[in-house]
């Protein structure tokens, strides 16, 4: 079984990663770090660039967690996470939450909400350290 972390290069994403590491160690399970982009804009700040991923890998290797880092292009972040959670024997999904206004959620939707509702396994949602 694995713990799946939805990773974004932001304070929320880092918090999710930390929480995911703790959970994976506690459960003695593998850690799967997923970062996605729809890939339809020229610039996507939520898509981790190579230096950031290298940093994540280094941290995980230093902590001695059994891990895998994946990047997926094409789908919606929420859909990719839910789909992977079903395929890859995932026991827990860890995501970061950020503060959104009601109007913002109405217009843009909320990936976190979609994951919480659709995922077939428990979801741990953490906030960025204040």
């Amino acid at each position, binding site marked *: 079984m694995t713990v799946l972390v939805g990773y974004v290069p932001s304070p929320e994403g880092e918090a999710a990663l930390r929480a995911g590491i703790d959970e994976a160690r506690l459960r003695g399970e593998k850690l799967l770090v997923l970062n996605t*982009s*729809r*890939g*339809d*804009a*020229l*610039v*996507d*700040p939520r*898509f981790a*660039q190579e230096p950031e991923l290298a940093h994540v890998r280094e941290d995980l290797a230093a902590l001695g967690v059994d891990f895998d880092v994946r990047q997926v*292009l*094409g789908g919606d972040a929420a859909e990719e996470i839910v789909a992977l959670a079903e395929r890859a024997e995932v026991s827990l999904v860890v995501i970061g939450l950020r503060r959104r206004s009601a109007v913002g959620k109405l217009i843009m939707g909320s990936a976190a909400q979609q994951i919480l509702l659709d995922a077939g396994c428990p979801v741990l949602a953490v906030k960025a350290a204040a």
Partner: protein
Amino acid sequence: MDNLNNLMQGFADVVAPMNLLLALVGVVIGTAVGVLPGIGPAMTVALLLPVTYGMEPVQAFIMFAGIFYGGMYGGSTTSILLNTPGESSSVVTAIEGNKMAKAGRASQALATAAIGSFVAGTIGTLLLVLVTPFVVDFAVSLGAPDYFALMLLSFVAVTSVLGASRLRGLVSLLLGLTVGLVGIDAVSGQQRLTLGIPQLADGIDVVVVAVGIFAVGEALWVAAHLRRRPAEIIPVGRPWLGKSDWKRSWKPWLRGTLFGFPFGALPAGGAEIPTFLSYATEKRLTKHPEEFGKGAIEGVAGPEAANNASAAGTLVPMLAIGLPTNATAAVMLAAFQSYGIQPGPLLFARESSLVWVLIASLFVGNLLLLLLNLPLAPAWAKLLRIPRPYLYAGILFFASMGAYAVNAQPLDLFLLLILGLLGFAMRRFGLPVLPLIVGVILGPRAELQGRRSLQLSGGELSGLVGGPVSYAVYTVIALVLLWPLVRRFVPRPLSREGVRA
């Protein structure tokens, strides 16, 4: 002095609130399309042309001038921060600009690009004011054979000087000339290439061609290559220049201006060649050769000045002779025609207030662009985060609306789709788009002048060779066409050095 008075009158007209507002709208749209790769000022002017039918021609041109200059400013931002040129004219800027940004000097690179563009744009527009009356005086003396020769030169230059392949340039030009032929022959009244469709008798509107090839073609192309790894954008603060940067920038600005203006004014000069020349010159003259390739500020300052000066230079032949030398000028020329204004030497006599307001609006737009770009460059870069499906949906909407608005004919929408597929195929097979547009716009006019000369001479071919001007132009054409042959058979040690520089 007369011109100066006219220019002052032009300024007086531009500062009217409505005109200032349109200038602002123009430069904002221009910068935005400049920042976004794949969307250029030519496409934008074509898209907005039908929207401006309700306006005074003067107001439409104030907006177009803003878009034209704005595109040159915006292209540098993408080049520097993303290493993807926003426009073809800022390819060279990316070489040193992105290196500077990676070395943490993005603000200086953006600042030297913006201020250099301002300096070059202002000097270039001044040169435009000074030079154009002389070109007009010269152009008035030209007869039909001379015009025919000049347009032939334009065709030859646009196919063989620009782009990697002459064959592809020629294919594209012939496509354009063919599209330009559709309709009723003005002399004999015969229908040509109308396929028995009555709506085609009026010809295919240039707006439909430009929008189809630029906008629909590009949208299809992007749709076919939608998913790609998002690139890294370099975060940047407010652009500024230190004292040493000013010292190193001002000479490249001036030299870049000197390269850019004349090349813009030449047929098929465009902005690409002078930016490369400026880069090569700065590389040779710099006191910091060790920085080149690692982010030298001269390599940003020179080419950015060159591309803005060439934008000003482009307007000289467009206004004075009616010859477009780049895609945006070609579409603006089509805009003149759609307002029933005949570009050429008589433009200054007949529509003098329009011309001078246009020129005055260039000065104003240039200043607005500096104010918009210097503090706001990081905000412009955020445009790159827009998902392209949204962007191109908007473009397709404007494209269909524009194509329909021209004649209110459903047939134009089918033509738009066909031309869009043609534009997609041209991108797929690497055909340049500029020769096609030039062919569509200049083709009918070249035919008119050519046949006029033949009518005057009673069908004698000698009528096509009118005077000293046409002799000189035909010589240049022969040189351009024969140059590759000559180079193949006369091996010279010099040519290798030319390639290296």
